[in-house]
Each structure stands twice: as C-alpha cells, then as structure tokens.
C-alpha cells in the first residue's frame, strides 16, 4: 500500500526573477571585483617599476564622469519604472523603461567615445589588453542590462498578465551595474 501525504495547495515560486537577478548580480560583482584586483596588481607592478599607469594616454574624464552619472540616473528611472509597474500605470512604466534604454545606449555611446579619444593600442603594452578587457566586460554588462530592459518592457507592457516583478528584478540589475561601474570608474579612470 502506498502511503502518500495528503494533498494540499500547489507550491508557488516566490520572487524567482528577483532572487535570480540578485544571484546574477552577485556573480557579476565577483567578476568585476576579480578583474579589478588583477588590474590593481598589475598597476602595482608598473608603479614599483617607476612607471605611471597608464604611461601616455590621456583619459577623457568628462566622458567617464558623465558615464557614471548616466548610470546613477538610469537607476532612478529604473526605480520609477518599478513604482509605476506596481501601480499598473502602463504609460509611466513605458516611459520610464524607454528612458532607461536610452540612457543605456548613451552609456555605450560614451564608452565608444572614450575608446576613440584615448586610442589605446591593444598590442602595445600591458595597459592596452587590461584596459580593453575590463572596460569591454563592463560594456557587456551594460549591453546585457539593455537587453533586460527590452525584455522587461515586452513582458510588462505586451504580456497577457501584468508583471511588476520583472521590472523590480531589472532595477536590481541596474543597481548592480551602477555599483560595478562606480568601482571601475574609480580604479581605471580616477586613480592613476
């Protein structure tokens, strides 16, 4: 005879997207943290050898500072999207997510501007490969966030059911991206 537990309510997942995004943010934090640690190590080697790091490149600080402010502003609009989505305000959610996407594109554009202004030679020295590896990874994180924004917009605005959780998860991702870029900005563009 089979002894089975008496039947009951079906278990429903709780805040799966939010927790998944938090774990992805944790993974991204160690990704950027590890890369920054290697960067600092290599810079220490250069400084110990009596060199500056970077040796000859001029960093367009206005652009890098604007990138930082862009990400902070982006977090504000992502949180606005959460506020609107919780109230099922379709218009404001769409507007906030659109602004988030535009700011993410602006960040990518600014990064491309930094690349074109600095003209770092990839194969020339230690700095080149480290610079493109770290900033390229950061840009990949922002591009992933842009994709997340588009998906969140489709699922929230175009889905059959109103979903505010994905907008919250999306905002959490952008908080992580802003924190990660803050560290990259300070280590790569501010401290020399």
């Amino acid at each position, binding site marked *: 005879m089979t002894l089975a537990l*008496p*039947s*009951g309510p079906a278990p429903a997942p709780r805040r799966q997207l939010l927790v998944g995004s938090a774990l992805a943010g944790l*993974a991204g934090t160690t*990704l950027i943290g590890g890369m920054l640690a290697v960067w600092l190590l290599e810079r220490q080697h250069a400084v110990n050898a009596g060199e500056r790091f970077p040796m000859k490149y001029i960093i367009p600080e206005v652009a890098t500072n604007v990138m930082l402010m862009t990400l902070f502003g982006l977090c504000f609009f992502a949180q606005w999207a959460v506020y609107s989505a919780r109230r099922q305000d379709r218009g404001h959610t769409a507007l906030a997510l659109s602004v988030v996407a535009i700011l993410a594109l602006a960040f990518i554009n600014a990064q491309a501007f930094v690349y074109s202004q600095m003209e770092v030679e990839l194969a020339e020295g230690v700095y080149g490969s480290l610079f493109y590896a770290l900033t390229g990874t950061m840009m990949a994180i922002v591009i992933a966030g842009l994709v997340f924004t588009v998906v969140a917009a489709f699922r929230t605005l175009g889905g059959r059911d109103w979903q505010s959780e994905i907008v919250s998860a999306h905002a959490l991702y952008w908080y992580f991206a802003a924190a990660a870029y803050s560290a990259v900005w300070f280590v790569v563009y501010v401290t020399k």
Partner: protein
Amino acid sequence: MEQSGTGAGAGSALLSDGRIGTTVGAVADWSTSTDHKKIGRLFTGFGLLGLVAVSVVAILRSLEVVADLGVFTGEQLGQLAQLHHFGLALMVALPLTLGLSVAVAPMQVGARAIAFARLALLGFYMWLAGAVLLIVAIVNGGGIGGSDSDMVDLSLASMALMMVGVVAAAISVATTVFTSRAPGITMRRVPFFTWTALVQAIALIITAPVLVGLTIYLFIDHRNSALAFGTSDALADWIPRFFSAPVVYIYAIPVLGVFAELLPVSVSRRHPMRQVVFAGSALVGVAAFSGVTMQNDFPVDFSAAGQDVVKSLVVMAFFVGLPLLGIVVTLLTAPLVAKPDGSSSAKPRILSPMLFGLLATLLFLLGAVVGVLLQVVDLELSGTAAVEGSVAIVCLAAAVGSMGGLVFWSPKFSGLKRDEKKVLPLALLGALGVVLAGVPAVIAGLAGSDNSLFSTLTLVGYAIMALTVLAFAGATRGGTADGTTNPWCAHTVEWSTASPAPADNYVALATVRSAEPELDQNPQGSPS
C-alpha cells in the same frame, strides 16, 4: 518485475521495425527537455563519460612513464597532464555533483520545476561545448605551455564558456532552493543534500566568475601582445589555482549531502544534529574564498620564528583548515545518528548508496588532509606530484559519491530500484580506485621520488576507476520496479511522489510539518 535494457546489436532491429523514429524522438526530447531531472542526468551522464576519458588519459600518461613507450613527446605529455588535471575538476567532479543537484534538489524542496529551466539547459550546453573545445584545444597543443598560440586562445575561451555554463546552472539551483520550496519546508527543514547543493551553488556563483574574468584578461592579452601575463608558459601562474586544493573542495561538497542524507535512512532514525551538519557543510564552502581571492598557497613554515608561524597558521587554518573541519564535523555526527535510542524498531541496513556516500566522504576527508599537508613548507610538497594526488582524491571522491546519489534517487528518475547486490561491490571497487589513483602520487611527493612503482599503482587505480564506471553503467541499466513510491523507506518529501516522478514532480503536496515528512507518515520504515 525485472527489467533489462536493450542489448547490443539493437541497431539493425531499430531499422527493421521502425523504432528509429522513436529513438530520434527520444534524443530530441532529451536534448530540448526543460525537465530538471533530464537536464541533471545529461550533466551526470557526460560526467561519467568524462571520468572514463580522464581515466584513459591518466592511463596513457602512466604507461608512458612505466613502459617508456616513446609515443608521446615531452610537450605532448605536458598537455596530457593538463587534460588529466583540468578534466578531473571540470569534466568529472563538476558535472557529476552539479548535475545531481539539478536533478534532485528541486524535487527535495517540493518544487514542480527548477527555476529558470531553460537557463539550466543552456548552462549544460555551454558546459558541454566548452568541454569539447577544451579537449580539442589541449590535444592540439593549446594547454599551458602549448606551442600552438591559436589553440591556447581556444582553451582559454572554452574554459570561460564552461564556467559561464556552470554559473547558469548554479543560479538555477540556488534560486530554486530560495524561492520554490513547498509550504512548510523552511530553510531549517531542507534536506541535507539540498543544503549542500545550495552551498555548492553559491560557492560556484562567487568563484567561477573570478575565473571567467581572469580568462578574459588572459585571452585578450595572449591573443594580442602577451605583454601583461606573458606567453602560454606564464598561464601556469594563474589558471591551475582554480583547479587545486582548496578550490576543488567546492566541486565535492554535495558528497557530504549524499552521506548525511542516507545515514539516517539506513538506520531509520531522524538526524539529531541537523544544524551541525548544515554548519559543517557550509564550512567546506569557505573554500570559495580561496577561489575569490585567487590564492591557493598558504605556506606554513614551522622553522620560522614563532610569531610568523602563528600568523601563517591562522591564514592557512581559515582557507584550508575550516573546510577540513567541516568534513570532520559532518563525519563526527554519524555515530550519534547510528546510536540506538529506542525511537525506531526498524533494523539498521547497509544501503549500497550509503556505502558510496560514506566512502566518498572519507576519501574527501583524506583529500582535505593532504590539502593541509601541501601547505606545510617543511614537507616540501609544493610543486610535486602530491598536488595532483590531492586533486585526484577529491575529484574522484566526488565521482564516487555522485554514483551513490544516482543509485539512491534512481527510482525517481527511472522508476527502477537498482540491484543492490550488483551495485554494492562497485562502491568498494570505486573507493579502491580512488585510493590507488591518488595516494601513490601523494606518497611520491612526500618521498621526493618519481619511482615507476607509484606510476604503476596510479595506472592500476585509474584502470579500476574506468572499470567501475563501465560496470556501474551496466549495473544501472536494469533494476526492480515494484510500484512503490518509497522503496528505500527514505525520509524526505520527494519520496511521496510517484516513481518515476512525473515531469512536474508533484500532483499535489501537503504542508510539510517536519524535516522528515515521510518518516512521520511511516515511522516503522516499511516500503510504501
């Protein structure tokens, strides 16, 4: 009812009676399924295949040393050594333990599905593609110190691809445990195996991205200038630290869960110190900090001044000693579980999967002890064969423990309870294989000798491991399907659903009121 698999020579039968369409359909079903049990078994299946492949590589290496065949050049032997070393961690221990977690943990927490099932499947394919590319790259001289620059780049990229896939699967497992537990399954009530799966998943989530970031640096630098990190020889300063003790302990953490899960089942008793086991397995997760900080060398020089010894001991105790303590704590609770307390009249049983779990945990302990010895400068083990021996012991222990898990949860996967008489000797054979594959290398390191006797024993050890896997595959093709949902009289909630479990695991589930809901229902411990 005894079932046996289709025999060899089935190919012609397939063509003649039109079953080829069914086979193609089954392949399509398995390769695109979002059923976590199938995704997990894909991981474990390829993990077992990887174990056979790695054993063959180790046998070839040892044969070259013992018989001096002259088949391989010095560079090729070096590449084979890397395929062996990285393969043990990336292609054996990781897919087996992570795959078992993917297959079992959602059922154990009463979830209908794994969180982000497509992400978990994508993770499997990323891992598989990375593994194939890594083999291709290293075989063509793309390992550390390899002469083919393009292949070195390929090996770095494939390693990153594998680790991204592993993180994807780990995120699925951890999210499931955090968000999809059935009503009543609090974090204090999650089964031991699920707890260890969670610890491993979090450890992988924080460790693997560090390796990914490092490989991005190494790839871009090596591809363009090789000025920051140097040529392929210099990769030895960076990559191996993620595949040596104590980081490899992360890959074996679920072994503790298999043991802790099965011991109470074999004595039909509740575990009296659940939280201590939780703490013990979490302590093993401290090994993740070694990966995050990219450090695996914490030397303790007892010939140095007393204050320096204490300082270095504290550091070593944190990174290497705490994981060892975690294994010891988990093992020390075993006598308390086994001690009769009059709460159950059921007789203790020697379950074959429990034996796998026990032996694997003991071997894991041995590997962790060797990991501590590696840090003692006075023993001069750094850079010797002992390093490889410690990795082999831990990773192969993970494989043995995973086999135990596959046997135990087999009724939920296939509906068949495996024949214990066939499987039980394989636990002993596997453990013998691990000892012979790993311990001679440690002794060789301690003795400072490269005597061919050690290589011969290693060769025998890996031959036994390959034999064990093949025999395991044979022994687990058949089994008994008696229609019971809980043939082991196990305690956790997954045993309340049908065997095999349906694709969505549960038709209905009650609020769980203890950590052993099935034992509450069936305190006499009879199959149900």
